[in-house]
């Protein structure tokens, strides 16, 4: 099976990134690593264990919380304007709607939604429109990949229907952001890539104050603190 390496900044590296470009480059690997080749019957990204629909739901909720906070802070920064601002406002609204939907879904399925984690962003993230859109360009494919990787593990058809509905919107976000970043053509992937759960965890760990993550899903530990994803 293909294995995709993601270079995750260490805690120290995250606090003091060498350059913002290096930081983004490292994260971007998560989004592009699996893009090559046909998706059909090739890469069982879902063969990765996992603890059922409620755990998957909470995993997705955590990602949506991260995106919602990122775009909320992006709008509040005051540095985004014009068409980009219109897009980023909708991005914020969509991610907040996804948070609400997943929270409701988990609750009504008898589970307990995870609390919103405390997120950390690299210095200067919100200092310019370009840096915001650049980080958005790494977030969105990770979100898509997480849903695509998780979908075949979902048992409930209702939960799967919900996941598909949200995943597609994240796919739209990828193209909107690509376009704002000047990528031509903005829709350029015939088979958007699924990501393994540990790949997704590795990509988002720095934003949760964690420098390294275990190789599989489940309890993540850092500095004596554990977060159930």
């Amino acid at each position, binding site marked *: 099976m293909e294995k995709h390496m993601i270079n995750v900044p260490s805690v120290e590296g995250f606090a003091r990134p060498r350059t913002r470009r290096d930081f983004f480059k490292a994260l971007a690997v998560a989004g592009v690593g699996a893009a090559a080749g*046909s*998706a*059909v*019957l090739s890469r*069982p*990204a*879902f063969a990765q264990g996992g603890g059922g629909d409620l755990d998957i739901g909470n995993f997705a909720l955590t990602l949506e919380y991260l995106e919602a906070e990122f775009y909320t802070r992006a709008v509040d920064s005051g540095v985004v304007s014009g*068409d980009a601002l*219109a*897009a980023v*406002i*909708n*991005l914020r*609204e*969509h991610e*907040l*709607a*996804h948070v*609400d*939907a997943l929270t*409701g*879904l988990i609750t*009504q399925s008898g589970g307990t939604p995870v609390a919103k984690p405390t997120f950390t962003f690299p210095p200067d993230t919100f200092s310019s429109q370009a840096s915001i859109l650049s980080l958005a360009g790494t977030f969105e494919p990770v979100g*898509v990949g997480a*849903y*695509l990787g998780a*979908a*075949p593990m979902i*048992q409930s*058809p*209702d939960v*799967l*229907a*919900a996941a*598909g*509905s*949200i*995943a*597609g*919107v*994240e*796919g*739209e*976000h*990828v*193209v*909107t952001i690509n*376009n704002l970043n000047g990528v*031509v*053509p*903005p*829709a*350029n*992937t*015939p*088979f*958007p*890539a*699924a990501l393994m759960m540990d790949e997704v965890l590795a990509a988002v760990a720095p934003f949760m104050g964690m420098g390294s993550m275990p190789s599989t899903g489940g309890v993540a530990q850092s500095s004596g603190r554990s977060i159930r994803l």
Partner: protein
Amino acid sequence: MDGAESRASLVGFDREHSRRDFLKTAGWVTAALSAAGFGGVALASRADAQEAAYTTYQGLGDAAILSVAYQLELLEGNFYAAGVDSGLFTDDFSVSQLAAIRDHEFAHADAIAGVLSSLGAAIPEPNLVFPPDVTADAATFLTYAATLEPVGIGAYQGAAPALVDKNILASAISIHNAECQHWNAIKILQGIVPPNNVAFEEPLPLQTVLEAGAPFGITA
């Protein structure tokens, strides 16, 4: 739980059980849609569509679902090929995007044909028909594109929970995502700002997909 078994039992559920499940589903969909700012009137029908859609594909079997998907991809591929070849689009941005979508649709068709073959199923040979005005002008072409893409999206999204084979589901959900990306690109070409203007993608029941595809020569 065995996936096929659970789906079979869902087809046979009794009315009261179904009603309960519906309300459960309707609850979170309602919360989601109201958070997204949708009006109250549409809520019931939207929630209904979200659940009803996949049940219309259950029991068909993966090959029958993929047979429709294959025809939709051929239709889209040929449609975008006509758009690229029409000469209506001359700027690099539009041409590169439409050519990329064309290539994606044919790649989807090829991939699905491969799966159909592996399942021992026939690969359909539809007689595709296009409306005479499809390449009348750029705006008309894009309007057709903006109509076709949500049909493809709705078909994959509606069918996904009914697919039995998890490998096929993994592929279908990836292709579904590509179609959502295409729709966003078409909205960009149409000058819609912002192009990302839906919070949730909509599934379509099988009958709606077939009715939409019938004038183009797509058959069940």
